[in-house]
């Protein structure tokens, strides 16, 4: 059993405004989110002694720069923006997902290196069309993909959704309830990009096709913005402003798929099941202990592979589960209660983490699952760099 179960907690959550293209710099948006998280926790900038993120830019399409403060905000730069350069004991930066940074930050607290760690994800939408592969040369892994048109993540995800549909006899109509309901959840979340814009099942079925059978409404929306979390020890959190969300356990994946395609259904299941086994082993808990599941939805199909991979449904039954409303607020297992990335905007898993925290601290407002004691957050596609976290209510 994991010795550090429930010893680290989230003490504060902060968002910047999420906009399609902001007129503020990414640095300004990042400061807005970080200051909001500090204020939420009742801490000052000078209380921070650890900062971590994965500052990567999306690889595909558009004008890609690496200008500090414009395209990326690295933790070294953020320390100076916050004026805490001399207070920082530890900085973490990964080339994977920001959720690896959350694990690193938790370890820094467990190790006694840091008292208060800021983990944030700042994302900028570059100018230009997102999906275009603009070079006439394809190098590295792109050489096996881009010459065939496999140059954008929606196409990779589409082959997974297609296989799922074909193997189990579903079609897009079966997904319409979930997608519309998920957007309805976003209406109850003041942070969500899509607030004020409901969609119907008919809107979903008529949506513009990106990579058949995946439409624009099966993809999260790239936004300019930032979400930040403050980690500290559970003991310390109890003296702060908000009730803590205890980090009960986590698991990360190094599972490499078959190759030849960036995503495929069977490997995503296998990877997710691998993550699930280690998460349940680490926590001594099981799917039956989860009151709300925040499942990564950069693409809609990932909700299915996580739902099944984590053990909530058998393979192929996840879509029927969602279609019957079991994932709705008030259902057997409310899924993506804050709207997920489809409804909140693309923040690479931060939406799932922030919502899990909100649910176990009774701070989810109109979307609160009554008395939610445990909430799961899973991030990415089940393959290497994917992670899962289980958060618990204090006491």
């Amino acid at each position, binding site marked *: 059993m994991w010795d550090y179960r429930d010893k680290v907690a989230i003490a504060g959550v902060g968002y910047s405004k999420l906009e399609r293209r902001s007129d503020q710099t990414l640095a300004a948006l990042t400061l807005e989110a970080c200051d909001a998280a500090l204020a939420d926790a009742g801490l000052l900038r000078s209380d921070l002694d650890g900062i971590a993120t994965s500052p990567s830019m999306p690889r595909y399409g558009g004008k890609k720069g690496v200008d500090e403060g414009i395209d990326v905000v690295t933790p070294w730069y953020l320390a100076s923006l916050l004026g805490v350069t001399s207070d920082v004991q530890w900085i973490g930066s990964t080339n994977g997902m920001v959720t690896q940074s959350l694990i690193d930050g938790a370890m820094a607290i467990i190790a006694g290196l840091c008292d208060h760690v800021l983990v944030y994800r700042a994302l900028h939408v570059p100018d230009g069309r997102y*999906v*275009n*592969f*603009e*070079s*006439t*040369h*394809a*190098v*590295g*892994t*792109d*050489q*096996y*993909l*881009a*010459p*065939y*048109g*496999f*140059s*954008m993540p929606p*196409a990779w995800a*589409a*082959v*997974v959704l*297609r*296989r799922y549909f*074909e*193997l189990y006899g579903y079609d897009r109509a079966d997904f319409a309830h979930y997608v519309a309901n998920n957007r309805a959840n976003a209406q109850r979340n003041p942070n969500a990009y899509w607030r004020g814009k409901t969609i119907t099942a008919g809107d979903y079925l008529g949506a513009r*096709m*990106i*990579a*058949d*059978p*995946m439409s624009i409404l099966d993809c999260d929306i790239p936004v300019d913005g930032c979400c930040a979390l403050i980690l500290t020890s559970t003991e310390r959190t109890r003296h702060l402003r908000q009730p803590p969300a205890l980090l009960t356990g986590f698991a990360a994946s190094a599972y*490499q798929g*078959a*190759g*030849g*395609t960036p995503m*495929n*259904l*069977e*490997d995503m299941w296998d990877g997710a099941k691998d993550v699930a086994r280690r998460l349940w082993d680490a926590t001594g808990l099981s799917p039956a202990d989860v009151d709300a599941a925040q499942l990564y939805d950069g693409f809609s199909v990932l909700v299915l592979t996580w739902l099944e991979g984590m053990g909530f449904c058998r393979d192929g039954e996840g879509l029927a589960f969602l279609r019957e409303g079991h994932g709705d607020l008030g259902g057997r297992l409310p899924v993506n209660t804050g709207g997920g990335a489809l409804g909140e905007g693309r923040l690479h898993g931060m939406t799932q983490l922030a919502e899990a925290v909100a649910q176990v601290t009774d701070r989810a407002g109109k979307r609160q699952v009554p008395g939610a004691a445990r909430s799961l957050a899973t991030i990415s596609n089940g393959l290497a760099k994917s992670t899962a976290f289980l958060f618990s209510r204090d006491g």
Partner: protein
Amino acid sequence: MPETDSPQRPLPLPDPLSEPFWAAARRHELHMQKCESCGRLAYPPEIACRACGGGRLAFTPVSGRATLHSWTVLHDPPSPGFRDRLPVILAVVELEEQERLLMSSNLIGIAPEDLRIGLPLEALFEDVTDDCTLVQFGPTER
């Protein structure tokens, strides 16, 4: 000079790891790496075997016979060079030699409505330029 209409699809820029694969394609042969320790076939080329960690992987011919694992249909060009090839079928095919030996490619010579999982396919070789041949797949000839 490119033989297709400009602008061109993105073309592979071979590297030391991939050069034997693309060289075989230019000869209209499909080659995959095979691990000398465990016999597992690998695609794309790997530096070490992801099954056993073995470091000796040699290219070997494979049949080119495959089945359709999954697909997506694009009606908008994924880059400008696809404008005259729409709708384009992006496919993942599973080679017959090994379970989950997957390859991303295009399907040619078949309509989207005729596709189904498990459809028998064979490798086809499309000479795009004098020094670049892409591996495509089409329905198995009867």
